[in-house]
């Protein structure tokens, strides 16, 4: 569906200074995948998305969406896009803004009202529909941005920092919405600083830093098993006396919790089994860092 081939982007100022924002970026994203992009500030995520939307031309390499130039694809099919900064004319009212975007999305006139109502209901904008954009709070503006991206059943959704400014309730709601949008014919790209979010939503995550692709990490449980040593926090309801025998290297962190390092999840399960057979009652087992977080630290650390 999306192909980056050796893409590079250099910004040049009028004074001749240049900054290499993206360098030698190659990646294929198949149709139907939910793909994450993670990276520290200034890593090149927004530039990459700008190139993917055709708002920026690559200095080197090529980008194709369904075999087409990005702008050609968008002009023909349209996409759902939420930018990092939600920029909508401040004079527009929320509902009117959605109506305009629905017109531009080429939704048939008789279906515009339904599409707008559905987007308003999905994003909980009912009480804000008559407010001007400038009167919306940051979270509501973000929801309006999401609503315009979801007006139509697009085959390609690009969401840049989609939960930025959302409260915990709407962050969870957003995850449900994205979960509901999963479809073999729909490709979603989510760029985020929030690794936990990408771990939950994406099938794979590209970690980029200094404009370069550092690695692509799978987020499924199978991928978790393929990673090396992992640190878990184990909470005990009872049986602390057995714990240090089964996990002699564990570090107590207080309140009946311990941190243990295991080589893989199979080893963890085997030792937990021993503990429970000995009479220990486990209340919770939580990785201190997700696989993605661990890989992110390694990748960004390595390239720094």
């Amino acid at each position, binding site marked *: 569906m999306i192909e980056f081939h050796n893409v590079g982007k250099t910004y040049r100022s009028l004074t001749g200074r240049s900054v290499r924002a993206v360098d030698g970026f190659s990646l294929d994203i198949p149709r139907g995948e939910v793909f994450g992009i993670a990276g520290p500030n200034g890593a090149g995520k927004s530039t990459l998305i700008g190139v993917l939307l*055709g*708002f*920026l031309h690559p200095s080197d390499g090529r980008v194709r969406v369904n075999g087409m130039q990005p702008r050609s694809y*968008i002009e023909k099919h349209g996409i759902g896009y939420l930018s990092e900064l939600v920029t*909508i*004319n401040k004079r527009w009212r929320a509902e009117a803004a959605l109506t305009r975007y629905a017109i531009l999305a080429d939704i048939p006139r008789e279906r515009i009202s339904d599409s707008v109502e559905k987007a308003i209901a999905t994003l909980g904008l009912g009480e804000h529909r008559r407010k001007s954009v400038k009167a919306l709070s940051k979270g509501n503006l973000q929801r309006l941005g999401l609503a315009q991206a979801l007006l139509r059943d697009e085959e390609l959704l690009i969401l840049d920092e989609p939960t930025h400014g959302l409260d915990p309730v709407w962050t969870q709601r957003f995850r449900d919405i994205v979960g509901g949008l999963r479809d073999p014919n729909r490709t979603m790209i989510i760029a985020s600083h929030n690794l936990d979010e990408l771990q939950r939503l994406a099938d794979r995550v590209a970690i980029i830093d200094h404009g370069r692709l550092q690695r692509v990490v799978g987020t499924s449980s199978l991928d978790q098993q393929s990673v090396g040593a992992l640190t878990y926090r184990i909470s005990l309801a009872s049986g602390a006396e057995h714990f240090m025998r089964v996990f002699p290297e564990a570090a107590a962190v207080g309140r009946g919790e311990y941190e243990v390092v295991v080589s893989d999840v199979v080893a963890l399960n085997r030792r937990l089994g021993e503990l429970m057979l000995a009479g220990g009652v486990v209340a919770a087992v939580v990785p201190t860092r997700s696989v993605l977080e661990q890989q992110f630290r390694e990748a960004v650390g390595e390239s720094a």
Partner: protein
Amino acid sequence: MNRRQIASYVPWQLWDFALDRGVALLFVGGLMGFSVLWPGYVALREQMAPELVAGKLLEIAVAQQVSILVVIAASGIVANDRIGGYYRFLFSKPVRMPAYYALQFLVTLTGLLLATLILLSAFWILVGWVSPMVPLVMVVATYLALGGTIFFFSTFTRFDWAMLVLLWGASALSRTLAADKAWYEVARWVLPPTHQIGKLQGALFAGTEIDIAGTAWLVGYGVIFFLAGLVVLQRKAIAE
């Protein structure tokens, strides 16, 4: 953009124009009209036959205001979307940028003509009836000439109006100060034909023959810039 999108979206663009520029046009037009035309009206009433006063005043108003109103209306057509970042959502939809902004250019002309009619209505009430044909023709010609040029600059700089003032100012200055210089023979074909605005207006108000070639040069100059602007929109990435 297809016909369905255009038919549905034009009223919204006109509404935006009314809020964003229409109010400014009426305010500036009204203020200039009141501060300049009213003293002129008082003076002319004592010097001319009453039936001639309105025509003379309108001629003064058109000469003073049309270019300024065109610049107010046409500046920032593309640049404002780039500065505000509004292009991001607009052009994630199945919309071609040149088509969108060509439509915006025509909507701006429509809005400008409507604002001109409102100002003329005030003129008719306060001064007297004069045919709107000449002012409307002057608005269209000046819009195509200046508006087309400013549209081109708007595709790549936020200082579109300043670039226009520089270019047209350079043209007017060089025509006045360097008309006898050898280099001016080349420059006169490159610089905008500012003098044609005055010539066209003079002919229209006097009812004499219009210099067709000169008018075509005036309008064509802006139209070429407008078309060049569409090419820039097609080829240049909007966020560059």
